């Protein structure tokens, strides 16, 4: 019973961060029909941001989020404006290949500049885990979990309550109709891509103290990310949140009850099954 509780807790903690990465990818897909293969590299950049913030300026990784999130937002908007905008009319496969190129470019530039060394972030307050009710909870993961909930909730309120958020949802539902109602689809796309990048960067910053950092970490993350958004239904924010938590649970429970070696395989098998039999996601809200 203790093992079960322990794996549920760590599954939910990791899952909350997966959810954040997934939400970024799914919002971008919803509005622009881009499957952004460079999303994992954006997470990687966030991780390195946290690392260098601590190494160079003694900045606490969790505090550094206030620098990296706006920067990633701005960077994302620039990438959309100067790189992606011209590609989108070419269709989904072209943007897929283009973002694959972008992903390889970013990852290899990072390899070139930062080398392939594995790095870790060591925090003084994170040496021993908390033990509420006898369940071990690593402090960096708990902090990341808390911040992830705050950020995701803020995003949800933004999408649900503000005019800009409504315009994003409207574009996601039907770009032509949104344009006819006076929504500037191009500007919305730019903001959305900025938003997706900022979420990826934020997730990277939050994940950095709990994972090894290396330039090609994005490759693994993007694969997990597809599992998440397809589980939840491509284009659905709530679906991505649920998908993220679900994948976190599947991985941690799978590691305990099925096999440590095959825990990542379970996620991919579920991914294939969902793609084949429920292409609109487990909750039937996505767009296929």
């Amino acid at each position: 019973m203790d093992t079960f509780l322990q794996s549920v807790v760590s599954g939910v903690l990791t899952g909350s961060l997966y959810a954040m990465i997934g939400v970024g990818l799914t919002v971008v897909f919803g509005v622009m029909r881009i499957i952004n293969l460079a999303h994992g590299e954006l997470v990687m950049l966030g991780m390195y941001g946290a690392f260098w913030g601590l190494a160079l300026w003694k900045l606490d990784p969790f505090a550094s989020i206030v620098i990296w999130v706006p920067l990633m937002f701005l960077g994302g908007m620039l990438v959309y404006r100067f790189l992606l905008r011209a590609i989108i009319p070419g269709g989904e496969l072209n943007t897929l290949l283009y973002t694959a190129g972008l992903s390889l470019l970013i990852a290899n530039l990072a390899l070139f500049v930062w080398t392939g060394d594995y790095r870790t972030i060591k925090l003084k307050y994170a040496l021993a885990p908390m033990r509420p009710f006898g369940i071990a909870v690593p402090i960096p993961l708990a902090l990341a979990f808390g911040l992830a909930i705050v950020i995701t909730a803020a995003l949800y309120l933004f999408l649900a309550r503000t005019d800009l958020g409504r315009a994003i949802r409207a574009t996601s539902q039907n770009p032509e109709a949104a344009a006819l109602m006076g929504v500037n689809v191009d500007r919305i796309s730019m903001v959305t891509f900025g938003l997706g990048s900022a979420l990826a960067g934020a997730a990277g910053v939050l994940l950095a103290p709990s994972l090894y950092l290396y330039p090609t970490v994005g490759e693994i993350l993007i694969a997990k990310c597809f599992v998440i958004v397809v589980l939840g239904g491509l284009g659905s924010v709530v679906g991505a949140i649920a998908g993220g938590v679900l994948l976190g649970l599947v991985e941690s429970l799978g590691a305990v009850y099925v096999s440590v070696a095959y825990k990542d395989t379970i996620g991919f098998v579920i991914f294939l099954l969902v793609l084949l039999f429920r292409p609109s996601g487990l909750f039937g809200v996505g767009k296929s």
Partner: protein
Amino acid sequence: MTRAAALAAILLLLALPFLTANQFYLHLGITVLMWTVLGVAWNLLGGFAGQVSFGHATFFGVGAYTMMILYLKAGVAPWYGIVLGGIVGALVSLPIGLICFRLRGPYFSLSTLAVAEIVRLVALNWEQLTSGPVGLLITTLPAVSFAGRAVNWESKIPFYYVVAVLVVVAMLATYGLSRSRLGAYLLAIREDEDTAESVGIDTVRAKVVTLALSAFFTGMAGGFYGLYFRYVDPDAVFPIALSVEMVFIAVVGGLATVVGPVIGAVFLVTIGELFRERFLVGHLIFYGLFMMLAIRYLPEGIWGGVRRFVSAHAPARNL
């Protein structure tokens, strides 16, 4: 005219090892040719049928492991192993095709990525068969003689000719496919799958057969990789990056052409290997950069661009 050009190209290919004794250039030539096979193989499905697979590393790895395991555990000579690697790759592709071809466009691409990751994880963990992360190592290659002379496995030249043969066969297969009924089906599928189906083309069958052909050549290239490097492990032959590099070579060179992937391989692999020789890491920077430039400015690839330029500037003539 084209026949003479092809003959000249083949003669140049055969003569190349005599033009240099520099081991690095020979290694570069072998690497370029191996990636040419992969680009050409990927192009059969990705170029002609428009089905973008991000999972071809599966067939490469299966081919490499088939050749290694058959040689190490059953004593099957590597050159048979290469062909058998292709055959096993093609067999493995059948169930994968039947599953993944139920999906279209980007969804197909993502599903192949997932399959490739599953296969990689299985190879990593099925230790009785693959020795897991430790990998498999060939210490000595069997003695063999060709045209009355013993083959010197310490030299790079025999490997060069083995892979050169693979390139020529794969290109001939592409040429054959492009002029066949199946080739016409594939173009129809690429342009509009629903219409292709409505005129009576069995689209799933056409795609599965093409995937098997593509997997056959990819598997043979994998078998060659095992023979040349004499060592395979799951991270070397099954990574996502390997699948992606094949895509880039075909797209940057020119999709759905016989020559395009060759140009792509010569161009990208040469830049990549020179970069690696000089800086050790980050050799795929230019792959990413040229992919982005190609999609933006030259969607038909380098070879397609050259052909368009030539036909626009050449004086009119009767062909």
